[in-house]
């Protein structure tokens, strides 16, 4: 076996992210960080076994790539199916789809913030790990507030089930349409529920401000350099460059905020390439026209990131009033745009939660959503790309089918994949900060985990893998590659 003249630390699993990854840290002779690798350790291969399925069955099948992102693969796939059959969805179908997707934003952003993100701040990053979770959080904010949050979040789940059939892994989509119409009663009920969603959005922002923004340590943490990654950004915007989720054009800006690209549909192939790396099952995308520059950030990088912060960075604003307010407030707080602080992802997420809730209310107040025209005549099947903004960032589904609409080729580029590069950088940065002179203890682990948690990595999505559990291990090797200290906990 080839000896490696470095100390090697492996950290896994990364708990509280939906999926599985592994971090390997290499120390130099002084015991400082030499390099860090963020690895994804499993592959599942949906792209292969989707082949042979009729395209209309794909949304219902591909959705199971991730049950946290319960609606996004479904929605991207059905948009691709529209394109495969060369049709636009009927206006009513489009509204229903958008309503479902925005409801998903509400419940998912809430789940992520309360189950994965807030614990770090509200329970405290240095708190006992056992308490640093949803259950601990509920104790922190009080089970009454906890109940209220969950209850209001559930209203969104209810809407998904009502319109899409199943509350998780929806089914009601058809190429060019939707399998079910919305009754006036349902519309009214959704309108009712949407008010609760908006309240949830406001409550969440308030919690964030009370617990995080009013705490100057956290502000430092957020605005400081430890969690700062300078890359390009991509997200969907409408004609007024406002944040969109269901449909729009993809806008790319560089680290200074200048627009460096716009595309839609099949155009993604001109801008994005996915680099295969021998050390991770997850491919690493970069901006094609800038060329592959490796896993580095800074003004020169060809890496880009997606997700809540990226969306807000590429956009000029939000398309709903309350969210717009919050949007302005956030960028005022940083005083710069784009914002490169990773922890600001949580803030952006809270703003989007409110925005999505407002959009649900807007869509539900439009009576035309009860119109019966949810299906359209289909064209001849061929090739199609569907792009949406998943909660975690841009999601691209691309299918080629035969003359009967049976899938021949599938290509999926998902949020977490886009973020693969920035996450590597973020983790390296945090490791460099926390590991000095070979001092490694469990305390550093959460500090490092806090670097990727904001991205809310969804590795199920990314590798189209099912997440798995690895033992957490921090192994330190001496120059002979012999183990001299082990924090391996089993």
């Amino acid at each position, binding site marked *: 076996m080839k000896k490696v003249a470095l100390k090697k630390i492996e950290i896994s699993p990364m708990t509280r992210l939906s999926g599985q990854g592994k971090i390997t840290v290499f120390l130099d002779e002084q015991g400082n960080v030499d390099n860090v690798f963020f690895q994804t350790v499993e592959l599942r291969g949906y792209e292969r076994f989707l082949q042979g399925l009729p395209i209309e069955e794909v949304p219902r099948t591909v959705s199971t790539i991730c049950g946290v992102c319960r609606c996004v693969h479904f929605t991207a796939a059905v948009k691709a199916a529209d394109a495969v059959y060369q049709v636009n969805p009927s206006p009513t179908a489009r509204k229903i789809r958008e309503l479902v997707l925005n409801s998903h934003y509400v419940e998912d952003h809430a789940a992520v913030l309360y189950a994965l993100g807030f614990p770090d701040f509200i329970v405290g990053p240095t708190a006992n790990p056992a308490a640093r979770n949803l259950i601990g959080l509920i104790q922190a904010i009080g089970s009454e507030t906890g109940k209220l949050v969950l209850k209001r979040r559930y209203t969104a789940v209810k809407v998904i089930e009502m319109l899409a059939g199943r509350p998780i892994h929806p089914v009601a989509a058809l190429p060019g349409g939707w399998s079910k119409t919305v009754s006036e009663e349902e519309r009214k009920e959704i309108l009712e529920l949407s008010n609760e969603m908006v309240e949830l959005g406001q409550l969440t922002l308030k919690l964030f401000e009370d617990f995080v923004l009013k705490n100057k340590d956290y502000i430092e943490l957020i605005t400081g350099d430890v969690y700062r990654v300078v890359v390009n950004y991509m997200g969907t915007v409408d004609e007024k460059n406002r944040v969109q989720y269901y449909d729009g054009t993809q806008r790319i800006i560089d680290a200074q905020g200048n627009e460096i690209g716009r595309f839609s549909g099949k155009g993604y192939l001109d801008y994005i390439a996915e680099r295969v790396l021998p050390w991770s099952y997850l491919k690493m995308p970069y901006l094609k026209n800038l060329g592959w520059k490796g896993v580095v950030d800074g003004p020169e990088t060809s890496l880009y990131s997606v997700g809540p912060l990226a969306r807000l960075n590429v956009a000029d604003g939000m398309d709903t009033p309350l969210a717009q307010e919050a949007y302005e407030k956030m960028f005022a707080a940083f005083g710069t745009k784009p914002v490169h602080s990773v922890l600001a992802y949580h803030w952006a997420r809270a703003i989007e939660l409110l925005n999505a809730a407002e959009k649900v209310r807007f869509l539900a107040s439009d009576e035309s959503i009860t119109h019966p025209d949810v299906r359209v005549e289909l064209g001849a099947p061929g090739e199609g790309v569907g792009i949406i903004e998943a909660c975690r960032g841009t999601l691209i589904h691309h299918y080629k089918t035969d003359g009967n609409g049976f899938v021949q080729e599938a290509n999926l580029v998902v949020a977490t994949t886009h973020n693969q590069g920035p996450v590597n950088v973020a983790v390296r940065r945090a490791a460099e900060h926390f590991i000095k002179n070979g001092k490694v203890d469990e305390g550093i682990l959460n500090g490092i985990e806090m670097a990727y948690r904001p991205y809310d990595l969804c590795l199920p999505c990314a590798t189209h893998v099912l*997440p798995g559990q690895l033992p957490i291990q921090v192994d330190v090797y001496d120059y002979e590659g012999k183990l001299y200290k082990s924090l391996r906990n089993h």
Partner: protein
Amino acid sequence: MPDKLKLAYFLSGGCGGCDMAIIDLSETLIDLLLHLEVVFWVPTITDTKYKDLEAIPDRFIDLGLYSGMVRLQEHEYIAKMMRRKCKVLVAYGACAALGGIPGLGNMHTREEILKTAYFDTSSTDNPEGLTPQTRCVVSGKYELTLPEFYGHVRTLQDVVDVDYFIGGCPPHHSFVRQAIPVLLFEKLPAPGSWITSGKAVCDVCDRNPVKKGEERQLIREIKRTLEGAPDEGKCLLQEGYLCLGPVTQGDCGSLCPKVNIPCMGCGGPIPGVRDFGLRAISAIAGLLSSEELVDQIPSPVKYFYRYSLPASMLRKKLGKV
């Protein structure tokens, strides 16, 4: 109620949907948590490390929910450990119980899957023609390892004894709400049973012609969901849409047919059925009005085994290493 009952949840090869189904219990989750001590819930909820898990005495945990199928050595390891630590071990959700949709991977070889992922896909950039390696050295000094990627998916029962099974992709939270108390506080059915009403989707489906006093008709044409629009309230199967409702546990309350989508079978087979797909073939083929229809059924394996290929008698495509 006595002192809190101990619950453990492990998400192995699962998409997290089953976790979310529990989160979707919403307020009732908090009430439930009053009676429960969550020993661990990884990786989604608690920050539990391996050692905590191993430190737990055997049969210390009252109820263990295992979600997701078995693919990695780690999955198998945890499964065995949970078996040891839990008095009652439940295969929770379609993946754990039947292999789930990822089980469709069993129709393809490891090589096919790698080729598609790292070579054939249109946005892939692979100048050196690499595939991820279980052990590799980057820029001459960084030695990195990855676990082996395994060809095929197994169910929990393939690696340990399972006390109970719960179907659904994921199980509907309203059913979870009924099931968990049953498992925790009530008299348990015989080990090896499914936690289910034991009745098919048809039993709870309003489209079932029998319920309207009509006689079920033979299937005269095969339709894909994008062809035509099903008649309101008419049986989808009878109309020619391949609905697996008759073969599938109906604990979901027939969610999909309610929105005009044929049942896809995520609930799993009715207790006593050995092979979901073969039952579907036997039940549905007999209803076809002519032989031509047999060949019109699109990709039958992926239709009839969408959620249960690894649990089928053949388990995976044959003749591969």
